[in-house]
């Protein structure tokens, strides 16, 4: 037999795929033009995009940045072309107001530019939340960040002392940063294992921040936030002292009572006394000067930060076996969720003073903060309740079987998992709360939207629409969109199951 074969005996070398299947052409054929209907849709949307983009670009690029009024803008368009174009002068004229409201900027006689304070508070906010939000930033880098922010601020404030302190802080930050960048990670880990000295935990600063921020924003005596912080310290020491003697529950109750007494009765006296001995303070700023994005961010951050713990407590109350507690929580949650935020803001603006003892008259921003926090807490409670309900029953039973008491089980077993499940809901509640802060413009606070009404009522800018609202919308979009991206990142980071 000859070695005749009808089948090829060896493999052919692989050939490159046809040009229509790879690269951009292949991708486009697969995704954009795979069928008549799809091709028509693609072409239509391309035309749509072209139309929108070309209009938008020719609208946005207009040399009107320095114009002082809308009529001046119109003159500039008239000279150039007949088409519609943006009048950016309004943003140039008012962006500071849109960001800071009427916070003292030194333009009036006898005042100084205090806007570094909200900026510093905002930057410190980032430093404070970094260790909570991101785990890839090392302890040292966080301190570098803090030193840099504080150093730059004191350099900005100037004066001999400011420059010395600023340079010292920046030098310290640079030294820490240099050490952190040059150190070998594994060697450092071994050192820490062996008991090397570490920098303090940056969460300490995060804990202090809630006392610093209001002081920076509203100013006044430094002793007031210190007094408020002392309440926690006193409560802690009372607990430490009583817990071994009378049991942890009694210790906790007494500690809370002592702290409450301190805050309600003694703090102001303490602050006044210390202020008269050692006066340290910032120039006070009235709430009515707050406005713009500063106001939105203040309300949003406070409501977000306070609503999470309150929401957790409400959700636990709603899930608990205690009938009365459950009824109270359900009533509260359903009531708040059943009414629009605007009615709650009406309560804040007109009724909250009526509910308080005669003679109390507290700040409108504080009243709004209370109502927005309560509103956010009710929504948060429902989100967290969803997380609790989604947890398999076995987790609760396993915690019981390990002999953990209620709070330990919640802290170690239930809450970490329930909160993880509810992250998307929590973050979308956060976004909702931040967006809802614009409602305060209806009760007369000057948030960006309230300011926009004032600007549009101004003779010079009467008739401006797209530029102004576009600017405000863009800023809101940046905040909300980055929050939603962060939630996706957090979901990925906390995903511990196998996929």
């Amino acid at each position: 037999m000859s070695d005749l074969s009808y089948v090829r005996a060896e493999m052919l070398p692989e050939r490159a795929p046809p040009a229509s299947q790879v690269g951009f052409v292949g991708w486009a054929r697969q995704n954009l033009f795979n069928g008549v209907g799809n091709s028509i849709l693609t072409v239509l949307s391309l035309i749509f995009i072209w139309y929108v983009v070309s209009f938008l670009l020719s609208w946005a690029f207009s040399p009107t940045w320095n114009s002082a009024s809308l009529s001046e803008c119109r003159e500039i368009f008239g000279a150039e072309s007949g088409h519609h174009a943006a009048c950016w002068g309004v943003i140039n004229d008012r962006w500071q107001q849109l960001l800071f409201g009427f916070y003292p900027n030194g333009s009036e006689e006898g005042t100084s530019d205090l806007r570094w304070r909200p900026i510093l508070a905002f930057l410190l906010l980032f430093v404070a939340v970094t260790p909570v939000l991101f785990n890839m930033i090392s302890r040292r880098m966080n301190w570098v960040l803090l030193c840099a922010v504080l150093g730059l601020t004191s350099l900005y404030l100037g004066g001999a002392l400011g420059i010395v302190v600023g340079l010292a802080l920046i030098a310290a930050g640079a030294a820490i940063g240099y050490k952190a960048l040059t150190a070998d990670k594994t060697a450092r880990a071994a050192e820490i294992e062996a008991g090397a000295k570490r920098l303090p935990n940056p969460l300490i600063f995060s804990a202090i921040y809630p006392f610093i921020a209001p002081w920076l924003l509203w100013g006044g005596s430094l002793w007031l936030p210190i007094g408020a912080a002392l309440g926690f310290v006193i409560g802690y020491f009372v607990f430490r002292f009583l817990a071994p003697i009378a049991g942890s529950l009694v210790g906790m109750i007494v500690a809370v009572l002592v702290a409450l007494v301190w805050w309600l009765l003694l703090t102001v006296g303490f602050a006044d006394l210390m202020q008269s001995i050692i006066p340290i303070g910032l120039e006070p700023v009235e709430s009515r000067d707050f406005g713009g994005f500063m106001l939105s961010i203040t309300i949003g951050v406070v409501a977000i930060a306070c609503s999470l713990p309150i929401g957790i407590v409400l959700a636990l109350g709603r899930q608990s076996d205690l009938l009365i507690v459950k009824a109270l929580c359900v009533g509260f949650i359903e009531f708040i969720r059943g009414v629009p935020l605007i009615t709650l803001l009406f309560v804040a603006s007109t009724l909250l003073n009526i509910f308080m003892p005669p003679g109390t008259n507290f700040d409108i921003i504080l009243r709004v903060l209370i109502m927005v926090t309560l509103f956010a807490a009710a929504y948060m409670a429902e989100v967290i309740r969803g997380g609790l309900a989604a947890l398999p029953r076995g987790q609760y039973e396993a915690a019981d079987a390990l002999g953990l008491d209620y709070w330990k089980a919640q802290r170690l077993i239930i809450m970490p998992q329930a909160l993880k499940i509810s992250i998307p809901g929590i973050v979308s509640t956060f976004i909702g709360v931040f967006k809802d802060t614009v409602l305060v413009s209806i009760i007369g606070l000057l948030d960006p939207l309230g300011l926009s009404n004032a600007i549009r009522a101004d003779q010079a800018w009467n008739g401006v629409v797209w530029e102004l609202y576009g600017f405000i919308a863009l800023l809101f979009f940046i905040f909300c969109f980055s929050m939603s991206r962060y939630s996706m990142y957090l979901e990925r980071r906390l995903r511990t199951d196998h996929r």
Partner: protein
Amino acid sequence: MTTITDPHQGQFRLSMLLYDSRYRSLTIQIVALIGFLMLIGWLLSNTAQNLAELGKEPSFSFMMEPAGYDINQRLLDYNSQDTHLRASFMGLLNTLLVAVMGCITATVLGVIIGVLRLSPNWIISRLSAVYVEGFRNVPVLLWIVFTMAVLIETLPQPSAFRKGEASMSLWDSVAVTNRGIYIPEPLFSRSLGDIHLLGNSSLRFDVSLDLLALLAVLIGGILTSVLIKRRADILQEATGVRPRTWHWRLGVVVVPVVLVLAILGFHLGYPELKGFNFRNGIHLRNSLIALWLALSLYTGAFIAEIVRAGILAVSKGQTEAASALGLRPKRTMSLVILPQALRVIIPPLISNYLNLTKNSSLAIAVGYMDITGTLGGITMNQTGRELETVLLLMLVYLTISLTISAVMNWYNESVKLKER
């Protein structure tokens, strides 16, 4: 009979209230209740004291006084001599009007965008994503105010129609002006008249007999059509052949309605330019249009995400199983995917309807006279009765919300997977 684990029979001590798990829950609850009652009592006593100082004893009699303000967009007859109650009633109807309109358009928009976002076409799905992210991440109040401003600033004035700079659209039937949109109104030349309900009271309203007749005929037609479908189903079960019925089913709905319209002498009243403004036709004011558009676009973005999530929630195995059974793609969609997706979609959808209804309270920012604008706005400012008006306002919204949630729970129960 003796129990095996006898409870501890020791003497009752006070500390057992805290440390004995038998009593502790009771202690906590009683403490919570006392705390709550004390808080309420404290608030009430403060309120009573403050109101007494201000000389405003709580009373709702102001609702019966003449309102004295005008409501330009309204569904029923109203004049400024009517009571505050009547004004609030108009406001409530306006709230419901914009809520229903908004829910319908938001659903249509959301479903379309949600499906498009799942499209294999890359550009289309990106465009839908841009829409969703753009609208979701900007406050709804900003959209409302912005839409209002755009309507006022960019649309032509009625005088432009006179000069010929602008013309009416849709075969001269709709006039889009910066004072609102004028659309044709349905008129009946051989009208049956109205029934006046509730006499002369503040809640009086008229029901058009023409509308009732139309509705009756329409419902009758739909019922007949359902009967025909049932009969076709029975025939198909018995013989395996489905009779062609769609023309009958369409006929029994359309023909009687057209007949009734012809008998009643139905015609459209077109808006006409008279003097400085348009007359006749239905005038939809800018405030209504802005609120409706903004709420629909905003809520539509949320609904799009819900629809997308619902469709993605149906596992791929279901589609594959359906095609393994030999169902065609269309039947797969209607018989397998949609019923399961709807179960995921409906609850959040209804909670979005709820949000839309609550967000319609932002009407006050553009001057649309909904319940917040009437009761919580002008009535509150005129009478100075903050406590009563805000309470009533909350009560109204709470009623609407609880009604919608009740419907949602009922629906949820009825479509829940019946398992174990």
